[in-house]
């Protein structure tokens, strides 16, 4: 069956149908994609930045966080980074990355969105607009052509359907660990013929087949399959490792994707968030393990060419709410890591945690625009020209100048 699909892919490629060929056709008029990899991890649900990256050196930290404050010593102690900021105890692998100078932590960072709706917040995070629903496509999609990436499988969503961030004019691929047995080549060819007049279904089927063939070796993880044979996407309780590991394997391929998105939800901790143990701690640990699995799957050489940026739609309230959780807020944390990253630093315009500096007296403030981080990574890591960044990728983002010094020279 695997061979069937591979040969099918080759026959499509010979006919110039699948995306990789199309992408090459664009080389003449655009930049060539290099061998660097960019991964964007979307954390849906508003991650609590003060839990993920606790500012334990702030004199008000312990008092404002109450039961949610992490300890600096003893069992379940946070990982100290620079004497002031730390990482949640669940982030053991991220701590190693920091120590290896492969992780930058950003704090008091947020998209330009200032209200508290998840869905608007995610729209701004993904569209790259200054306000919700201003732009209909995703900033990462708009950045593909300037990176030299055209239609095809050089840009990959680990999802059944690409998220808004990677959706737009450039056709991209999507992949999930498959669990259903694959139909034979003959049958698929008949279905392809049925889709001849249906642009949407035709494009999706071609793209899926191309990816499926390339990813056979990324599917050997039984953990990707639930007890009833169902898939486990990055939902609230889903194991993230198969998704991240699969992404790592696909990104490792010489002719494979250069850009990928991953999604993980389960961060909307309104109730019993927990500190060193508990709900959020378990989810963070799952994320930490998945990141390590991706790194391992890529292999050293590809990891060294990789930057992973991980962000959420907004942060949460500084003080715990009435039910041991936190409510929707504004500023929060973001992470940039990978072998290509100039790591070992925390970047934050820190103003403290007293009520008078909090947004509306409750939210962690937003002092850095996430777009400045995204623009910095696109510029330094993927060579996206400044004109494209300002005009098409992030229109109206002049106030958010690209952050410099993120990527190793």
């Amino acid at each position, binding site marked *: 069956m695997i061979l069937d699909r591979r040969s099918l892919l080759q026959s499509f490629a010979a006919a110039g149908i699948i995306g990789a060929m199309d992408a090459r056709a664009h080389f003449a008029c655009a930049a060539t994609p290099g061998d660097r990899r960019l991964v964007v991890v979307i954390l*849906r649900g508003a991650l609590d930045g003060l839990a993920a990256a606790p500012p334990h050196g702030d004199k008000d930290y312990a008092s404002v966080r109450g039961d949610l404050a992490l300890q600096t010593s003893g069992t379940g102690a946070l990982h100290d980074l620079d004497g002031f900021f730390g990482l949640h105890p669940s982030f053991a692998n991220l701590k190693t990355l920091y120590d290896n100078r492969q992780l930058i932590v950003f704090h008091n960072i947020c998209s330009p969105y200032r209200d*508290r*709706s*998840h*869905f608007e917040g995610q729209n701004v995070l993904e569209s790259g607009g200054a306000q*919700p629903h201003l732009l209909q496509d995703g900033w990462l999609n708009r950045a593909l052509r300037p990176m030299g990436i055209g239609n095809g499988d050089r840009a990959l969503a680990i*999802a*059944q*359907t690409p998220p808004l961030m990677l*959706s737009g004019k450039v056709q991209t*691929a*999507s992949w*999930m660990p*498959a*669990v*259903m*047995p*694959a*139909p034979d080549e*003959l*049958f*698929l060819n*008949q*279905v392809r*013929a*049925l*889709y*001849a*007049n*249906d642009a*949407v*279904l035709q*494009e*999706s*089927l*071609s*793209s*899926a*087949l191309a*990816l*499926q063939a390339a990813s056979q070796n990324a599917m050997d993880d039984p953990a990707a399959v639930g007890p*009833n*044979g*169902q*898939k486990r*996407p990055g*939902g*609230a*309780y889903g194991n993230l490792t198969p998704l991240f590991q699969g992404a790592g394997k696909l990104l490792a391929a010489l002719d494979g994707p250069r850009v990928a998105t991953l999604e993980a*939800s*389960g961060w*909307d901790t*309104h*109730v019993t968030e927990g500190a060193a143990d508990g709900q959020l701690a378990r989810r963070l640990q799952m994320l930490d393990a998945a990141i390590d699995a991706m790194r391992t799957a890529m292999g050293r050489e590809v990891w060294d060419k990789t930057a992973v940026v991980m962000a959420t739609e907004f942060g949460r309230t500084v003080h715990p*709410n*009435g*039910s041991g*959780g936190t*409510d*929707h807020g504004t500023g929060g944390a973001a992470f940039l890591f990978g072998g290509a990253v100039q790591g070992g630093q925390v970047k934050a315009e820190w103003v403290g945690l007293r009520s008078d500096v909090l947004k509306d007296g409750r939210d962690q403030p937003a002092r850095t625009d996430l777009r400045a981080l995204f623009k910095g990574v696109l510029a330094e890591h993927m060579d996206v020209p400044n004109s494209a960044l300002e005009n098409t990728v992030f229109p109206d983002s002049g106030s958010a100048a690209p952050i410099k010094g993120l990527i190793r020279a």
Partner: protein
Amino acid sequence: MSLEAAIAVHRFGLGARPGEIEGVGADPKAWLTAQIGMAAEQPVAPDGGAFPNCGTLVRQEQAMIAERRAIKAGDPEAQKKLAGGRMKIFTDEMAGRFKLGFTSSRPFAEHLVWFWTNHFTVSTTAGRTLNFCGAFEREAIRPFIADKFENMLLAVASHPAMLVYLNNNASIGPESRAGQRTGKGRNENLGRELMELYSLGVDSGYTQADVIALANILTGWSLDPKAASGFGYFPNRHQPGVQTLRGRRYAPDLKGGIEAVRDLARDPHTAHHIAIKFATYFIADEPSPQSVARLERVFSQTGGDLKALAIAAVEDDAAWEPRPRKMRSPVEYVTAGYRLLNLPGNDADGRLTRAAMASARAMGEFPMTAPSPKGWPLTSDAWSGPDAVLNRIEWAKQVGGKMPPDFNAARVADEGMGPLIAPATRTAMARAETQGDALALLISSPEFQRR
């Protein structure tokens, strides 16, 4: 067999069962309207009876928690059984729901239930909702599909499943007696989503102060095992003082809370929000402003009469465009496939129903498990990504492979799709190697993927 009858069955209904399109008769609109004059049908429990009410489920849940505490350090087998108990309640409820979808002779009413349940999303992904999700649809949605929107909204906002899902059971007025004693406080989750997602919509001009006011108004709305509904109002947790929400003042008691919820339902922004979602679900991914305006007007003029809203959608010419435009969601897709094949039959051991449930889940959708309170997406692009499409074709092929040798795919196609089948699909079916493949091609075809 008329084209309009086929459209009625596939677009507004849930796909044709054998003979269903023939049975629509000369007036497809009347066939649809006749289905929605009353409450929706109720699913049947595995023992053939009715499922328990939510008060019973709340008591069961408390007993389970107590039992688990008692055996905490003890018997691991007993502990496993308890965890399995919750999942079994949910699975049984959902199996009843799927079965109703496969067999209902009021498929438009059932489709309306699906729309409203998704609009008022309660999900097993957060909170301890597993036991209560089935009851939520049975008690807060099904009785109200032909009622006033405000009655449905109130039933939703006070249902134990919603109170647990959006943490209102843990929300305590900071200045209430319970708040003073325990130091616990308010939780904004339900207050926010009630306005943003379930009534006004996100761009309707409410403020953070409104969110807090509504959260205060809803403090004390929690679970009461002594009530048949499972809902109780606890004055000692209620934030004292009159609250001002969107310029109106509400007394600090249950009556004030009910008034506030009803006022949200009657707000013009709510009419607009509901009209857009309803048109997007039943008419087109991008409904015309005229379609939306019509639904909005009917909603407002009838005081949020949901039967009138449904009839207004049926009477919109735009809803009768011959070409199917909306991609079926996985649950819709699997259901249409089962209806086409007259499945699951008597299915005494439930195996075929469970298979369909697992398939829908593998394709990316399962009722009451949406990743967020926004619910499952309403538009086609959510279900037409590369991986999603391949999964659906794989499912079609599997279903085709299970057909008996004497199966006649062309007859099933004629009866179940009739004038909706594209010539290319007929040709491909005629050329297929087996009857099973012919059926798989029909189920994979663009016109069956959509409604």
